[in-house]
């Protein structure tokens, strides 16, 4: 079947063990204020305009059958998109000689996605790596994701998914037979704060976490460190207690705040206000939080080479 994806990125090193390729799906059940991949929030494909790539040739305006594009001299942005008129037919994207106009994702069949993911199989075998499905969130397109995972599994490749656990447990359960590693996000222990920052409370997430842990699957727990929000002593302490209770001795990894995502918000005409003045945690700041986790008997995984989020492909 077909799925809606942002992209497939090869040679990813931080979404599980070894050398991997990662499929980034579109669509997510949460709306985290700090989301690193905002183009992954909706399953729908959107037109994306990158002014810095634009050479103002005007070909797109001519190509548009719906008269949805306009270029007025020097005014910014050079190309204005009338999103009411735009039917996302793609003519402008095909015509654009640069990549100034592009879609923020594409529709692809599970077989085609798996074919690309399996291209680096020699690297996975050598490094005990594999493939990861991230997003967005795999729980939003479970049938597609599971089909991809099954093909890769059949080819003898290690599989992982990255999920925020916001979905039916029955759906999550369907992933168990075809997924070797679950990388799961826990953000905030306090349900009200969770609602405030992600638009959903965390009851379902906590229930799913507990159930998955009981199921005995291989689990790596991740906590995004958002200054002043998730990266507080009280939140980390509370999460640590919760994790210890449901999944004693769990492996936990911090994912430091990544200011680079700000650019993506600008690109999508979304507010960047959240990112103003926000800087990643210092190493000593992370050390302090790590001690809290360790005091609850959790195993903290530190990877100094990682830079969180899916960075721009230069």
């Amino acid at each position: 079947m077909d799925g809606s994806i942002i992209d497939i990125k090869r040679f990813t090193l931080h979404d599980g063990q070894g050398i991997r390729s990662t499929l980034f799906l579109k669509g997510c059940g949460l709306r985290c204020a700090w989301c690193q991949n905002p183009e992954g929030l909706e399953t729908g494909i959107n037109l994306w305009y990158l002014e810095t790539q634009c050479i103002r040739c005007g070909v797109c305006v001519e190509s548009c059958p719906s008269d949805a594009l306009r270029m007025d001299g020097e005014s910014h942005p050079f190309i204005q998109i009338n999103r009411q008129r735009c039917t996302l037919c793609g003519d402008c994207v095909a015509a654009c000689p640069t990549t100034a106009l592009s879609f923020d994702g594409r529709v692809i069949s599970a077989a085609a996605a798996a074919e690309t993911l399996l291209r680096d199989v020699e690297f996975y075998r050598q490094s005990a790596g594999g493939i990861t499905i991230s997003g967005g969130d795999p729980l939003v397109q479970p049938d597609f994701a599971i089909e991809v995972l099954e093909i890769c599994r059949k080819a003898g490749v290690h599989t992982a998914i990255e999920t925020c656990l916001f979905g039916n447990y029955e759906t999550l359960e369907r992933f168990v037979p075809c997924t070797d590693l679950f990388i799961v996000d826990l953000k905030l222990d306090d349900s009200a704060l969770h609602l405030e920052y992600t638009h959903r409370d965390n009851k379902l997430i906590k229930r799913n976490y507990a159930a998955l842990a009981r199921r005995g699957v291989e689990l790596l727990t991740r906590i995004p460190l958002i200054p002043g929000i998730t990266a507080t002593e009280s939140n980390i302490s509370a999460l640590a207690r919760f994790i210890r209770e449901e999944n004693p001795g769990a492996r936990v990894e911090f994912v430091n705040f990544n200011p680079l995502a700000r650019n993506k918000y600008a690109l999508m005409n979304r507010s960047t206000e959240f990112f103003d003045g926000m800087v990643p945690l210092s190493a000593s700041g992370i050390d302090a939080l790590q001690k809290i986790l360790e005091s609850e008997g959790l195993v903290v995984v530190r990877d100094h080479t990682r830079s969180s989020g899916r960075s721009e492909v230069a």
Partner: protein
Amino acid sequence: MNDSVLGTIGELASTSRIGMLKQRMLDEPRFLSIEQARIVTEYYKSNPEEPRNIQRAGSFAETLRRIEIRIDSLELIVGNRTSGVRAGVVSPEAGISWVDDEIERLSERPQDKFEVRSADVDRFRQEILPFWKGKSLEDRVKAALGEELSAIGKVAKINQTDHSQGHICPDTADWLARGPRAIYAGILEKQKTAAPVSCDFYRGMAIALAGALEFIGRYAELAGRMAAGEVSAENRTNLTEIARVCRKLTMEPPSSFREAVQSLWFLFVLLHAESNASSFSPGRADQYLYGYYENDIAKGLLDRAAALEIIESLWLKFNQIVYLRNSSSARYFAGFPIGFNVAIGGLDELGEDAANELSYLFLKAQAHIGLPQPNLSARLSEKSSQSFVQECARVIGLGSGMPQVFNDESIVPALMARGISREDALNYAIVGCVELTTHGNALGWSDAAMFNMVKALELTINNGICLLSGKQIGLDLGSLEDYESYEALEAAFEKQMDHFIERMIKACDRVDRLHAEVLPSPFLSTVIDGCVEKGLDVTAGGARYNLSGIQAIQPANIADSLAAIKQCVYVERNVRPEEALAAIRSDYAENERLRQYLINKVPKYGNDVDWVDEIAAKWVDHFARRMAGYTNARGGAYHSGLYTVSAHVPMGQNVGASLDGRRAKDPLADGGMSAMYGRDRAGPTALLRSVSKINSENGSNGTLLNMKFLPEFFRTEEGIAKFADFLRTFVRLRINHVQFNVIRKEDLLAAKSHPEEWRSLTVRVAGYTAYFAELANDLQDEIIARTSYGEV
């Protein structure tokens, strides 16, 4: 190798002696040196009737008797061919007309500057230059081929026209095992029983070796004199030891590790003194020095720290000889790639892993010294131990660009496909930058020429007319407007290539023969297996293997350009041929839209897109098949290589705008196997897969793939382990070569603006490492622009 030995080596530090010697060397200015040229010229003037090989041997020996020598009292390993370090030696027999043209500008040229003493300019013009007019290799080549070389030069650049060829790996093991005294005695023996025709050949060798022995003896005397006047007890002890070692080496072969290393270094000084060429390669020094090392360690005569200090002394010495090129050549081979290429690890003659303690000590020395020489090459195979691969990864992560990595699994079969025995193929070494050779028995003539396929394609789609000059330089087979199908275009391209290949081979043969006439090399012939037995100079085909290598340049631009033509002009038909032609004729002046379209909307080589990668593979195949059809002047085969050193910059200057979206005169893709910079966007695994689709046998002369990683990648043990896995997969993919720059873009920008603060920063230019601050600005920009990986 057990872990405790590894741990001991891992903790060894560099000594203050090495630190001081390194600093002194870097602080010493580089001068042009005409001292040897004056001695040689005098010799030729006084011996006009002797055959050429005797003139060569005699002038060589005379140089060795008279040239000023110097010892630094801190040195453990001594010797150089000039008293100053990193001097630019003028070599009149090979070519000096260019020196006459450029001597005033040598201190100001953009690449590879030398200071020139004003008195030397006058002496050069009065005493040296007039005598050599019309006699040097350069002048002889010009007289024989001058017009043809410029007629075909934009497509086929013929090399080795004004210098000795070098690019050879002598039989150092034999030099060490027998010693020059015994080799000399053997030659005298041969001379007695030789047929009259070969008599002069052996006489030349004997003269050269006698000079070599005197040269080594002079160091013994100098060290002895210096010891007598030395106040520091430590230095006096050292100088006395130098005197003892050198004196011994004039009489017998080395027995200790230090003696062996000193003997090795003398061999390379002597080879450079005779030929003034780029690249005499020590090759597998970890193998042939191991017996000396093991013996000293076992007897307690040496510990690992002392061995490392000796190795690092040799590493510094490798940086004291540079090679003076003309301005044009300095652009093609920028930053003094003198090519002391040392290969470590790899398979032994039984096909088992050969890495030993010296392999690790050499890596350690590289980690400490971090200078452009030696050109350290790690041979990897599927049998390489994890610890060796990880140590290589660790040193690569330090960012000096070394070791570069070679793949036994693909190279051994590639060499065997050229008729080389399995034993010799397993014992391969690297000369110059990335050129493959057997050990001690081959003249590979690996840089015979460079063939610019991108220019040939330009001529194919433009009636044989050069886009830059408007001159008819190729066959007029039509233009892009005339070819009715993509297949017709391909047929024309093949014809255009074959036309230039034919002319190129004729020119190469001629240059090869002129070398044998003008530059016989009696000393070199004593250390290349085959010459003494055959009674033939190495330049005349004395070696056991005689190959000629020509580089096919550049698969990436060919694949990208032909993919664009195929997709846009013939398949989707959204670009009219006349529009494409108009665009490249005007260097895209009026059509940036098309240029962007070609760059962004046509898939590119290096992204694991099969149909595009296969275009690269196909034309490399074609070129290799043509090479296999020719025999060179020494009776050996031609074969192909896929590397440019830094030549992608000047070769790009010869090519007009191309349909891969490259502007006129912009550099071609770097390296040889690399993707066009910035256009491999699918990551390093995709790039390796693309490269692996080109048949590695077609790169039996050597291939070059550049990759750049950010240092973050190497900061953790986990990162190093992943990099080691990346290298092992490279081995499995049967790619001949890869090398890595590990550096931040900000560092490079800073180094460009403040060269004085970044004097010791080295980067991988192509097949070699150079000081970044010493590279010309456009080459610096080009390195900055190369794609980098590591942040994902």
